[in-house]
């Protein structure tokens, strides 16, 4: 015996079924409307950027891979190993181990320097807090965004890597561009 739904049945009022002209418009009209934009742009030519041969220029305040800096005149490292960046980092991805400068080995301008300075870029969220925290502008967010690698441990950037000029510099967007 089929089940008697009783009072549970709710009947719904439907609109008329599409068909005829309405149906045809639905099938082609909207598509053509979209294609209008497409064909209008054909005249402008392709704007595909041929990455990696070509690169997207970044804005000046883009927060890419970090750079550590040296004083231009003395060549000493600006970083004194104070660990403030490590304290500010919300991802906890900076490790600083400081050591003391000696007259024979002077690395930074202050009493101490960073003997170990590592950023684990696989954990970095590129928030830029480290840059804000640094009292000596020793660390800044650079322009480079090419950081993919085959190995997670290769994403731990050491002090030497951060101090070095990147191989390929990401282009900076020109004023007003």
């Amino acid at each position, binding site marked *: 015996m089929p089940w008697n739904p009783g009072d549970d049945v709710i009947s719904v009022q439907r609109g008329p079924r599409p068909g005829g002209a309405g149906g045809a418009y639905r099938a082609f009209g909207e598509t053509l409307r979209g294609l209008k934009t497409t064909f209008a742009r054909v005249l402008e030519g392709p704007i595909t950027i041929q990455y990696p041969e070509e690169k997207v220029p970044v804005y000046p305040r883009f927060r890419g891979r970090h750079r550590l800096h040296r004083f231009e005149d003395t060549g000493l490292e600006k970083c004194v190993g104070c660990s403030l960046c490590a304290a500010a980092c919300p991802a906890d991805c900076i490790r600083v181990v400081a050591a003391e400068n000696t007259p024979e080995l002077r690395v930074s301008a202050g*009493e101490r320097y960073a003997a170990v300075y590592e950023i684990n870029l696989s954990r970095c969220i590129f928030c830029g807090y480290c840059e804000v925290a640094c009292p000596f502008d020793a660390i800044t967010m650079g322009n480079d965004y090419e950081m993919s690698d085959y190995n997670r441990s290769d994403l731990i950037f050491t002090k030497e890597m951060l101090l070095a000029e990147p191989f390929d510099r990401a282009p900076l967007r020109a004023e007003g561009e």
Partner: protein
Amino acid sequence: MPRPETRMVTLSIDGREVTAPENVMLVDGAKYGDVEIPVFCYEPKLGAPVGACRMCLVEIEGIPKLQTACSTPVKDGMVVHTQTARVHAAQEAIVEFLLINHPLDCPVCDKGGECPLQDISFGWGGGRSRFIEPKRHFQKPLALSPLIAIDRERCILCYRCVRFSQEIAEDYQLVLQERAAHTFVATFDGHPYVAPFSGNIIELCPVGALTSQPYRFRARPWDIEGSGSVCTLCPAQCNVNFTVRDERVLRVLARDHAEVDDGWLCDKGRFAYQAVHVDERITRPMIRDGGELRPVSWERALEHAASALGRAQARVGAIAGGETTNEEGFLLQRLVREVLLSNDVDSRAGGSLSLDLHRALGAPAAQATVSDLEFADAVLVLDCEPVDDAPILDLRIRKGVRRRRVELAVATSRPSSLDPNARLRVRFAPGCAEAFLLALEAAIGTAAGEPRREEVARLAQAAGADAGAVHALADLLTTSGDDVVVLWGERVTGGERGEYAGRALLNVAGRLGLRDRDGAGLLCVPAGTNGRGLAEAGVLPNAGPGLSEVEEAGRDAAGIAAAVAAGDLVALYLLHTDPLRDLPNRGAWEAALDRASLVVAHAAFLTEGIRAHADVVFPAESYAEKEGTVTHPDGRLQRLRPAIGHQGETRAEWQVLAELARRLGRDLGVHTGPMATDQLVAAVPFYAGITLDELGGKGLRWPAREAASAFPAPATAGPFELEPPAPAPAPNGRLRLGTFRSIWAAPEVEVSPALKFLHPRQRAELSPADAQRLKLFPGDRVTVGSDGHSVSAIVALRDGAPEGTVFLETAIPEDSASLLEGPLVEVRKA
């Protein structure tokens, strides 16, 4: 002197009603109402406030000017405001003033992140500087000592370090020199500040002016974790906090415990942590192979040790060193007694005492606590040198004398650093504590009207002491008050006549009524860190766990040496001890170690005896890795907690002992550290019911618990009838030999890069009169010899050393006094 009672007073702070103990300073009183008043110079541990920094200004109704809350005691009905505009203006002004000459080099400053000046500038400062003039400059950084760096620019002249040096450690070295903005902290004579307690000023300094050299630039507060434990480098067992970064101990800070260390640490405790991470440390098991110790796998080492111990049958002697925990000691005696079926296990260097004497001396009723030293009417320091034997007690005694007018008497053979603070100093010949105590007992009798003057004179002469001084001491002890604490060194009960000296001590204690009196009693300074715990855990030849009777008493340490040398025992088990270094009579031990066919050692460092004689070496855990309990000399069980993982291949030592037992065919039933603790607690009736949770971070004095009534009562606790001992040997042109162990004589000090410079070399301490007679000058090299043995030493003169005596160091690698037999030696210029 009973402890002062605290009455509570009620006052109003910022409109809150606050109830605080009477006479505390407003700064501390405010804390009872959760009001924080910023301070720099105030530190209750340093005693009376000085009011140097003015940071703590508050407004008190009825007093027109702002007052320093650190030096104003709370009063009933006082109305205090800390948040008014006037107070804020004053606080801002003080911060601005302090920062005028402050370099604010926080990024390179080691204090950054844990700096009160940073915190207070942030919380109470104006946030703006108006100072554009050049700042004051000092040369920096400078070494105040090899352990402490000083940056004078950062100093805010709060006087804390100077007060510590002048009033707590009383080494009188630090002073403030010059005036006004040019004032700086320095030692009076410009020498480095080297003192047993110097490291405390690092923790006291509220800015980064004084920083630790070994910790310099190692880590920031957000890089580290703190881990509380107990220092096991000496019997004072101070509570410490290890600073750990990347599984390495980088620093040791005090963990205030008013009943143990009062918040101070000695420099050994503060800096010898470095020994945890040095290359010299043994971190792999080793086996002697072709005459050399070579690293092997655990499996091989355990198998080798187990099979060789099995072959030795019952002919094994075992000795536990002072750093052994209660659990390790307990398992060791189980291993020896139950598995190896030997009775020869000991932890005392000075020879065994009767079980009755152990029970009488250790009875809960007769024990004084550490804080009793501070509140007693009189303290007698008997044959120990606190600064060497348990350094932190030295500070406690000084505190009692300075702040509570405790009458201090020092009765020792070697001059003590407490001599200048003592009301009375009595010297007796080394090893003559027995005769001295008998004389003292007779003198106390004389003071009570008994006709025993002649006896005193006779006994004092036998002890090599001055009879008048003994009478004076008896007077002092009987008249200054009822609460007398006797701090006695374990060397009193060392040697052949130790048993009788112990009984004489009990007679004196009985005479003074020290038993069953709160605030009075005996406090023993054992030779090893955990001497008390090991005795209670049953590591004695004649006592099982809980000082219980054993069926058959075994040999003591000296007996074991003799038996091994004679071939009666064939194997030695050395738990954290190198007999050549730690035990007396090095000659006998050399013979024993040569003859032993198996020496199994748990050791952290290859000290001479281990290097030359051990056949199997298991790496010992450092105190930062250990899990277990130790017992403080006053009966406080304290818990060791691992701060770092085991270094290298080191394994927990309870595990090694249990594994050896298993391989020898017996399961001790110990699979975790706490299981060992449970077994120990179950086996010692007067520890009954103690759990690790109950011990927590502060420990627990078992004599204060109910279970203490299960302590086995001695057959008799005195008074004993005692024969007068043989008189002290007459020097006859030679000198009596006294020995001591310096605070720095420890392998941990020897290998710590920062402390190395303090590791002692042999020196001969002479009285100026003897030096004059022998035509010796300080710094001369001499040879001290007796019966064909001799050691070489440097002469050092000590005022107050008794004439006719020379003191030499033990527990050092070369030229240790344990090579000499004494009691008389000859000193010749080398």
